[in-house]
């Protein structure tokens, strides 16, 4: 898949959001145009008015009486009101459209990330993912807000050119040239200074969050080894890099603004002498209109300044999304499993255990089946279909998985259990009972609403494991997948857990795939496969043992 095609996905998402916010964005563009026209006319007209009045005053009482001061002064006030109102409309409509679009983009992107192949979805650190969904999404805000910029710039430039042309056509032409040079220079400056800094900034904030997230998770370890200061310094140095880039970006904005001042000066220098031959009020009008015409381009400078960050953010967000693979089938053909290398066939309801030395790859083997790691072609089959040909999310539906590395969300006991799907309190308590955890939860006055802490830190290791087990029990799936379900449990608790598991399996008719080092849990299964040692097919006697279990 080429990079250009990848960029297309996030672009399509943003285009979709723009369509949804079309009304507001058009309003913002109209507002932006009105602001520029009003600002140019306001200052130009004021200059003309003052100068005209001065000439009339000098010319004597009669000229002063006939000088039409009511019209211009009324128009000046009207323009002032239009400018204020239009700016308010432009800002509110533009930002509201952007905020609403971003609020919809975030869950959309999270869901795209979750739907990505497991190696991609799980390969991203939490800090990095958070930076993408917060800071990168914020950075694309400019793609909505700046839509009004060309309109404001165009309308402001046009009206300034028309007004100066009314003094002399040469003045108008020179202003048009100056504006062109100004815009060109701004673009060059932005590309050279702001773009690289903006791009680096998005990467740097991701690195910073990534670093903080990783070290925060290790905070107890850091403290235990007296590394608090090292950890803090290490984050601070990543942060310092981020801050330095941010300063560079700020200064880049300053250089663009400085260029704009230079362009304003150039406009005055060129336009004023070019009005020789026009009346003095027209010179004043032309000079002030030229100044405001350049100012109308300041919106462009703002947009250019954020360009790099937005472009980088788009690329980073695009990495989160993946084209759904068309050659994978969604439907699961059968609930029967087959481990090809060992020639093992498992009909629904059967039980099989895996054991083997640590590091042999037991966890990887079952996670490849359950769609949490990339599947290997020819390893697992569902019915007659190679698991590698079935979408991971389709395979996941078959399994209720209690992982070795229990992942809990920072919420209550109830929230963690309900990840498995909707269930009433009675069902939750039954599952906790079967995991030998109900007593412990009952001692807490908050019961199911007791918080478990970040990563389950309020629970002991064994309690976390049993909560993970209870959660797996709550999932209605044909296969129970238990990885070291009794690790860290004392013998008595282990006995209770296994007894309840035996009864539960009999009741639900679920099949069981179990990974363990311990004899007690292994005894639940009629056949135990040694992973990492023998790669030959299973003995026929074992295959019949599977059937009779």
């Amino acid at each position, binding site marked *: 898949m080429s990079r250009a095609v990848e960029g297309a996905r996030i672009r399509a998402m943003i285009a979709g959001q723009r369509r949804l916010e079309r009304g507001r964005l058009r309003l913002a563009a109209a507002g932006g145009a009105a602001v520029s026209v009003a600002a140019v006319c306001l200052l130009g007209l*004021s*200059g003309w008015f003052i*100068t005209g*009045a001065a000439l*009339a*005053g000098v010319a004597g009482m009669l000229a002063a009486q006939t000088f039409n001061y009511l019209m211009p*002064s009324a128009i*000046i006030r009207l323009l*002032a009101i239009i400018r204020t109102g239009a700016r308010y409309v432009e800002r509110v409509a533009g930002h509201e459209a952007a*905020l609403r679009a*971003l*609020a*919809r983009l975030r869950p959309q992107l999270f*869901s795209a990330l*979750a739907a990505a192949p497991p190696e991609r979805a*799980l390969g991203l*650190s*939490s800090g990095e993912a958070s930076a993408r969904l917060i800071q990168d999404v914020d950075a694309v805000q400019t793609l909505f807000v700046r839509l009004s910029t060309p309109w404001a710039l165009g309308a402001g430039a046009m009206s300034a050119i028309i007004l100066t042309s009314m003094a002399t056509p040469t003045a108008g032409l020179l202003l048009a040239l100056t504006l062109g040079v100004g815009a060109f220079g701004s673009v060059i400056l932005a590309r050279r200074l702001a773009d690289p800094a903006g791009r680096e900034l998005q990467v740097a904030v991701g690195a910073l969050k990534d*670093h*903080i*997230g*990783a070290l*925060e*998770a*290790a*905070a*107890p*370890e850091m*403290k235990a*080894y007296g590394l608090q200061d090292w950890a*803090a310094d290490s984050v*601070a140095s990543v*942060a310092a890099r981020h801050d330095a880039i941010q*300063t560079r970006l700020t*200064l880049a904005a300053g*250089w663009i603004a*400085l260029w704009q*001042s230079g362009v304003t*000066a150039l406009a005055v*220098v060129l336009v004023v*002498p070019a009005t020789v031959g026009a009346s*003095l009020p027209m010179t004043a009008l032309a*000079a002030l209109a030229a100044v405001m015409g350049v100012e109308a381009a300041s919106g462009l400078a703002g947009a250019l300044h954020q360009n790099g960050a937005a472009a980088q953010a788009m690329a980073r967000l695009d990495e989160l999304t993946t084209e759904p693979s068309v050659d994978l089938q969604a439907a699961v053909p059968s609930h029967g499993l087959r481990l090809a290398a060992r020639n093992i066939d498992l009909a629904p309801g059967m039980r099989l255990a895996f054991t083997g*030395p*640590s590091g042999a790859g037991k966890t990887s083997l079952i996670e490849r089946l359950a*769609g949490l790691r990339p599947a290997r072609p020819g390893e697992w089959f569902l019915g007659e279909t190679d698991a590698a040909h079935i979408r991971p999310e389709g395979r*996941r539906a078959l399994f*209720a998985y209690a992982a*070795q590395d*229990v992942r809990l969300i*920072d919420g209550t006991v109830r929230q963690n259990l*309900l990840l498995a799907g909707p269930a009433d309190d009675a069902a939750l308590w039954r599952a906790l009972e079967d995991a030998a955890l109900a007593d412990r939860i009952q001692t*807490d006055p908050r019961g199911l609403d007791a918080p478990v802490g*970040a990563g389950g830190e*309020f629970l002991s290791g064994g*309690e976390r494991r049993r909560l993970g087990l209870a959660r797996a029990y709550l999932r209605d799936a044909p296969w129970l997948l238990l990885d070291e379900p009794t*690790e*860290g449990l004392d013998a*008595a*608790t282990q006995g209770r857990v296994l007894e309840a598991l035996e009864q539960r399996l009999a009741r639900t008719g679920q099949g069981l795939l179990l990974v363990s080092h311990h004899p007690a849990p292994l005894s639940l299964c009629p056949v135990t496969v040694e992973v990492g040692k023998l790669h030959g097919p299973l003995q026929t006697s074992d295959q019949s043992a599977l059937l009779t279990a």
Partner: protein
Amino acid sequence: MTMTAERDIAPAAWLKATARPWKRKVAVTTLLTVADVAPAIGFAGGLAMTVARFSDGLSAATPWLALAVVSLIARGFVSQAMLAMGATMARDVKADVRARLLADLFQRGRRSADRLAAPVEGVAALDGYYARFLPLRIAAGVSPLIIIAAAAMASPVTAGLLVFTLFPLIVGMALAGSAAAAESRRQFSALERLSGLFIDRIRALPAVLAFGAEARVTQEIADASRELETRSARVMRVAFLSSAVLEFFSALSVALVAVYCGFNLLGLLPFPVPEALTLAQAFFVLALAPEVYHPLRRLAAAYHDRQAAEAAVPSLVVEAAVPERQVDLPMTAPAVRFKEVRIAYGPGAPVIDRFTLDVRPGQIVALTGASGVGKSSLLHLLLGLAPLTGGQVEVGGAPLGEAGHFAGQIAWAGQNPVIIPGTLADNIRVADQSASLEQVSTAARAAGLDLSLDRVLDERGGGLSGGERRRLGMARAMLKRAPLMLLDEPTANLDSASETAMLDVIRKAARGRTTLIATHSTAVAAMADRVVRL
């Protein structure tokens, strides 16, 4: 549980106090902000004189045109200098605040995902306050008066008018400043919530995927995201409305000056005034009039920065660090004495109560007991990761109550060794930053970790199996030269052959050390000099 120091602290006072060490940079930035008025006056004067002299021919106007141009360019440079100064000042203050936050985060040694937003989003919210608002606040009081004084030289009446029009503006500013403060706080809280939610749910993503809970978690994120949008939209509308009102006032004021000047020039004023303006004077004050309001409008625009910063302050305040008294443990194996020890994490029932134990120097003690009985908590106590809420603990005669913890002087292998992104060697070196590669490699071999030391690991473990993680923890404990060793379930996730090998490793490592092991394994318990059942 976090101990967010969200006390009754005035955000404005905190923000000011935080900038105190950078008084000079604040002063220079403010000075540069005020210095902006000089080229502004120069430009107005140059433009006015250019127009006034233009009828005498281009050459008469040229010097004035040059003044206008030079002023414009000078103005650009002044503002760039101000920007640079403000940015470095803000950077320094932010780095200082962040350093304090990080010290607090790691000093506590407890996980607190909801505090993760503070060093990134929270600190970022300070930028606008220090880079823009703070210098502008002082400049906004001084700059308009300087410009009005300059205008007074051309037209005292206009200067009077300008002073008069400042009052409604200042009232409007005060109103804009006080509005939406509470809403800003709610907006920042929504941002913190969303940021924390992302980190937590991505950490739990393997479980989310395994349980097909994507739709539910996406809904949670959509809700938090919408909440942030609603709050932001409210804050934004108030900010834009107040700046629109100010802009409107200033436009009306400029129009008032324009009308006065026009009528004065025409000689049609309905009341007597002590001055008759020339075109140059009139044009000068007219060009200056918007400049009077310019600093105030910029300040109004920066009000948003102030509110954002004030909203973030409650999350940025950390308790002043209690200077810890480092109590050095002896270099030889110490005796460990627990007397009537009580550990309670919250107001609920204690995890450990009235626990008494005497461990002789060099002994290996296995702590066993049902899951959840508090074995890990006893080990955490010595590391300062669990609170001593009653009783006494002494290590080598040093009381824990006074030291707070002996972290940094203990060889420790936790139940769930955390992996930091980096190589395997980096991960072992967590135990001792000064260790040489040779020492790291020896520790790895001793712990039975026969993987390449250059192997890169990510925060999810980079493909280490449960047993390999366990060995990583042991390698850390082996690397650490400390007289006290604490091991939490050192043989979990190991097959029986590996467990036997690991027992040898522990026995070797325990030589000359006092060792406490929390375990369920009968083999480990059999190896210990003493088994204590909790």
